[in-house]
Structure formats: structure tokens, C-alpha cells
């Protein structure tokens, strides 16, 4: 996690545009003010000095202060994290419910028209730019937080459809059907367990996908979550914010993926 934060900081520090401020273009500012502004952004600090300073402050529980919003990072994150959690939670719930349910329906029914319809729906949602979807939500006055669900759904559907379809074609499943087992039993006892580890891995990845998708979504829809904060921080090269946000995303990704790995291994052991 720390590595993620530091690597993120390196990327930001080395990328062009670090340490500049659009206020430098204000023609009222004197030479001294501009020089002072540049010095305060740490443009000239070497990377090593920068790291040590950050680690030292972190050791004392200080996450630093956001340069662009002039407030403590800890306070900003605490204010905005619940918003993102709500959006991501709702998005994942909707995406998985819709995606997984449709995938099961397609695989179990084997109806080509259902497959075509679902794939078309997923295709349309994949092809619609996020900005257009956000706009449509605003036009129909639907809660924009559900937008994440529509971003997650096509990926969940497509992967789970293929995984379940492959499991459904395995010999032991065919045998189970031949022996007269009902659809529900075949699904719960034979198809899902086989595809389980991969689906759990997908679940872990979808958390990270949702978090990543939350950034442009919150920026587009003006939702005051950490996604919007990350976008502003990226555009403003706000290293203090970016390190911490990268670490949060790394932590969430690691936790989600580790948890899904653990469940996957447990289910294999149980089987």
C-alpha cells in the first residue's frame, strides 16, 4: 500500500505540470509573488527529500494538506469517502444483480434471443460515453449514483456469462442434467461451484473497476466523493491528496481481491 502511494507520488512528481499553478498567469502578481508561489509548490524539491518528508509526517499521523483546496487531507477524505462508498456500493449492487442475473438466465435458458438481447444491452452500455449516460440520467432525473451500476453491468455480464457457459458445458453438468436434476440444483450445486473462484476473482476486480469508474463519474455528475477529489487533485497535481487517494484505492483493491482469493481457495478446499 505504501509502495502504491510512493509510486503514485513518483508518477505525479515526474509528470509535466507538477508545481505549477494557473494563478501564475494572473497579470496582477508581482515577480516576487510568482517566485514565492513556485517555491511553495515544492517544484525544486528533490524526490528523495519529498519522500522522506512525507513518510516522516505519516509516521506522526499527518496525511498532509491539500494544496489545491487548502485543507487537511484527512478531513477531505473523511468528508467525501462516505459519498463514494455509497455510489460504489449501489453501483456494484446494481451491476452485479443485473449482470449476474442476466448471465444465469442466458446460460440456463440457452435461448439465443435472450443472449442476443442481453449482449446488445451490454454492448450499448459499453459503447455509450459516460458523459452521455450522465446527461441522460440528468435529463430523466434519475439518481446519478446508479450510473456506476450501468458501467459495471456489461463487464460483469460478459465475463460471468462466458464463465457460467463454460461450466455448463462440462461433462459432470451434462451428466447431472441427464440424470434429471432440475435447473436450480444444477446451477447451485454444479455450475456455480465450478465457476466460483473465477467469479469471486471477478467480484474483486469489479470493486477496483467501480472505484476507477467513480472518478470520471463523480467529476461529470458533481458528486462530492473521493473520485471527484482525485480528479481535481490530478488536474491540480496535488501530490498530498494523490498519494493518500492512491493508497486508499490500493488498499481497497488489495482487500477486495485478497478477500475474493481467500473465498475462492476456501470454496475449492471445501469442494
Amino acid at each position, binding site marked *: 500500500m505504501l509502495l502504491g502511494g510512493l509510486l503514485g507520488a513518483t508518477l505525479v512528481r515526474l509528470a*509535466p*505540470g507538477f508545481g505549477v*499553478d494557473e494563478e501564475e*498567469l494572473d*497579470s*496582477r*502578481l508581482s515577480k516576487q*509573488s510568482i517566485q514565492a*508561489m513556485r517555491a511553495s509548490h515544492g517544484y525544486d524539491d528533490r524526490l528523495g527529500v519529498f519522500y522522506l518528508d512525507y513518510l516522516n509526517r505519516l509516521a506522526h499521523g499527518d496525511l498532509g494538506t491539500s494544496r489545491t483546496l487548502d485543507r487537511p487531507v484527512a478531513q477531505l477524505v473523511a468528508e467525501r469517502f462516505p459519498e463514494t462508498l455509497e455510489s460504489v456500493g449501489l453501483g456494484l449492487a446494481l451491476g452485479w444483480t443485473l449482470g449476474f442475473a442476466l448471465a444465469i438466465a442466458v446460460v440456463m435458458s440457452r435461448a439465443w434471443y435472450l443472449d442476443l438481447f442481453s449482449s446488445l444491452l451490454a454492448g450499448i452500455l459499453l459503447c455509450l460515453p459516460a458523459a452521455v449516460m450522465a*446527461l441522460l440520467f440528468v435529463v430523466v432525473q434519475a439518481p446519478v449514483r446508479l450510473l456506476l451500476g450501468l458501467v459495471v453491468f456489461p463487464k460483469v455480464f460478459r465475463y460471468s456469462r462466458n464463465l457460467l457457459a463454460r461450466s455448463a458445458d462440462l461433462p459432470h453438468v451434462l451428466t447431472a442434467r441427464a440424470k434429471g436434476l432440475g435447473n436450480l440444483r444444477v446451477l447451485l450445486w454444479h455450475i456455480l461451484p465450478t465457476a466460483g473462484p473465477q467469479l469471486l476473482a471477478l467480484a474483486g476486480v469489479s470493486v477496483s473497476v467501480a472505484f476507477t469508474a467513480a472518478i470520471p463519474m463523480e467529476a461529470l455528475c458533481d458528486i462530492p466523493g473521493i473520485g471527484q477529489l482525485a480528479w481535481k487533485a490530478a488536474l491540480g497535481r496535488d501530490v498530498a491528496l494523490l498519494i493518500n487517494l492512491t493508497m486508499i484505492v490500493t488498499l481497497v483493491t488489495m482487500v477486495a481481491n485478497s478477500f475474493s482469493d481467500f473465498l475462492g481457495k476456501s470454496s475449492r478446499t471445501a469442494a
Partner: protein
Amino acid sequence: MKKLSYCLSFVVLVSSAMLAQAGSELRFCLRAEPKTFNPLLAADDASETIRYLTGGVLLRVNRLTQDLEPELATDWKITNGGKTITFELRDGLQFSDGTPFSAEDVAYTVQQLMDPALHSPTGDSFRSGEGKVETRVARKNRITITFPAPIAGLDRLFDQVAVMSAKSSQKEMAVLGPYYVAENKAGSYIVLKRNPYYWRKDPVGHALPYIESVHLDIQQNRDAEMLRLTRGQIDFINSIDAEYFDKLAAQDPAMAHDAGVSLDSEQMWFNQVVSAPLPVYKKMWFTSTNFRRAVSEAINREDMARIVFHGHARPAAGPVSPANKFWFNAKLAPHPFDQKSALQRLTQDGFHLQGGVLRDHEGHAVEFSVITNSGNKYRERMATMMQQDLSGIGIKLNVVTLDFPSLIERITRTFDYEACLLGLVNDDLDPNAQMNVWLSSSDTHQWNPSEKTPATAWEAEVDRLMRAQASNPNPKKRKEYYDRVQEIAWEQEPFIYLVNKNALSAVSASVHNVHPVALRPQVYWNVDELSLSSEFARNR
């Protein structure tokens, strides 16, 4: 005529008062979160909005007439060759938290403003020379401020200085303006409530402002903002894009307001920095006046104004917009679109057309890039139009859109660019606000910043003229100097001025006494006199 306008204002204000509903709330959007609530540091649009709505100033530039009017100061006098200003202040006023207002507060504000460690952009406008700024409080309502060197247009600069309390425990949150910040949900909205101690009253003695509160939503998405306006969820859009303006005007003409040309301009410039990492032959092109004039003449400004801005812009002649009534040099006209003349100028510098491609005297094909900030549709379109225009004289233009920090780094630090297309947002009428653009030694002398000595004779002349106008108290003489600066800019084209945009705004019919103007803030410049009609009141 003045009596008639006073009578009309009286009638309008009285009727507004009658129509104003208790508990009313004005709603509009900010495009970003304010970076600061400290009025001395406000430099971004959102912070300046908060400052305008909450700050009390000594003098106010009337956005409609462009005249300077008394506010917290009832009278003022400039003496000592423009170095000293004395204010007579209103008696018996209080800040929004009840703290009494006096000359001590003005002295405190000025000392804070001029503190070199603060680096306030507003403060830097007052910096005329080395030395300390002296403040002398003669009595409770009289203060004299003396600057180390004369400042031309000194009084008008106080329009930007919101007075802070020296004694209040609320610090910068205690204000003298019509509203104070009551609630701030970070990233989401800000609510301002009526300042119970606001000093202004309407002609019949009602306390102003009429509107109880102002709700500012933080909304970056312009489509969503437009939809909310049409649904009645917000009351106005202070600055609306041309394509939305036309759409709105088609649906409801009464809502769409075109206040005419604004102070803003869009311009392109070539990189003339000697140390720039460019090939020598390109530096020779960009430093040639003929080359710049030719490029300027090859660009069709009329088409730009018509197509990109839907007719809500006009070709620009120079650094000053016609909206700046006093300072605009009316003798200057925009460079005409004339590709023949452009090619003739280029021929003088040894360029020639070969197979439809323009080449310099060494045979290099003329190709350069123009950088502009991404996300600005108008600039992207303008750059694309310039591509076609310049291809008419055999020049290949590459359009590169960059994120703003990368762009700023290129134009201020690395100088790794060839041409840049940006806009100038002008809030101040006085040419002193542009001093640092024209002084060759300045960091914001965009085409070639921080010159140790002026690189050209004309830049030396501009330096002399700008310094002369800055230290001369006579407005007529100042205008003479600045007219000449505009003429030199027109001849030499360090900036190729493209268009001056119109000030477009959209206002719901429920807002009364609104008179959109070209100067910022276009719609709510008279916020304390606005009212919301009870006839159109709705539950929010």
C-alpha cells in the same frame, strides 16, 4: 435625464420590495469550489463570487455605468501626486457579527493586503515601488493611506478590496457585504444568508438585500446547469456558452441576455523566448513581425465569431475590448482577412509557395504547432479553423490540446512550445492591471518573459509608455500613452488578437430588477437590489 433615471430606479426598487417574498432564496451555480474565503487572496472565479456577495468595499465600480461610486466610504480624495488617498467613512456600521466598523478595520485590511508574505494578487496591484505603505487613522471615520510611489487609477483599485474586521473573532468570515457565509458543504454547496447589519437601504428605507439567502451549488457540468435552469431549479446562469444561449433564446427569448461585447478576448502568440528548445529557423519565423502579421491576416476572424461563437463575438483589434469605453483605442480596426496580403508579407521575408507548401528561404516547410487547454470547445474549434485558414497560405498547423498544468509548465518554465492559444479574462478596466503583460521584464510577458533588457526597440518603447501612464495622474495623458501601446501591439502583433466574446447570460423571469451587463459579475452585480417575484415563487 439623471433625475428620470433616479425616479425609475426608485419605482423599480419599491415595486421589487413589494414583490419580494420573505424567506426567498436566490439559486445559481458555481463552476468550482472556492479556493479560499479570505477576500485578500481571492483570485479564482468562485472565490471572487463569494467575495463580491459578502465583502464590503470602500468604493464600487458601478458595473452598468462603469463609474466609481461611494460604498463604505462616502467621500475620497487623492493627493500627493497620486501617492495618498484619504477616505471619509460611513458612521455607525457593523460587521455581520455585530462588531463595530471603523477606520481601524480599513487600516488593518490594508496592512494585511500589503504584507509581502501574503502575496495577494489584489495587493500586488497596489505595489507601486519599494517601501512601506503608511496608514493614518485621523479619527474613527477617516483614514489616510500613503503608498511609496504614485499609483494611477488608485481609487478604482479599492473595488477589489473587501474590508476585514481587525477585532472580530470570526476573522475574515465577519463581513460588511449584503450576505455572509452561513453554510458550506465542501464540494457540494454554499449557503449565504442576509447580513442583518448590512448598511444599505432602499429609497423607502427598507433594509437591503431583498432576497433572504443565496444558495450556490457547485456544478461543473454545463449541460446539467442549463437543464436545471429550464426546470426552474436555479434562477440564472451568470455566463452561458453561445450554443446554449441560442437554444435558450429559441425556447424563451426573455431569459436569454446578450449584454454585448465583454472585456474578454481570445488570442494566440508565438514563442519568442531566446532560450526556447526550438530550431533556429523557427525562432527566426516567430520573431519576424512580417511573419506574425501574415499569420494574423490569414486568419478569418469573422468566420470565427460567426461559427464558433454563433455570432456572439466580434473580431478583436487589440488588447482592449470596445466594452472598455474609456480606454479602447477606437482608431484601431481588426486586421482584415486577406491571404494575398499575407503572402506578400511573407515574400518580403524570403518565404515562397512551392507545390502548395510554404517554405522559408532555407527550404524548410512552414509547419508549427499551437497548444491550447483541453476541455475548452471554443478554443479547440478556433484552432481547427485556423488550421484551414493557414493551409490557404501553405502553412501546416498542428493543434495540440493539453491539460492546463502541462500547458502552463510549457509557457512559463520549459518554454517548449511554438504557439499558444489562450484567452484573457479581464475584470479591471484600468491598463495598470495589464502592466505585467506589457513590461518586458515581467514574468507574465507571455511571448518572452523576464527579459533582462527589452529584446526589441518596440518592446522598449512599450516599457516606457506603460511606466509613463502608470505614474501620470492625468487620465487624458494616460490615455494618450496607452493608445500608443495599443497601436504598437496592433503593428507588431506579439499577441494575435482573435475575438472579443459577448457577455451572455440567462435569467429566469422570476428574478426582478436584473440588468445583465458586460462586466463581471454580469447578472448579480446589483444583488442587494434583486428580488424574486411572489407570483413565481415555488417550493424549493
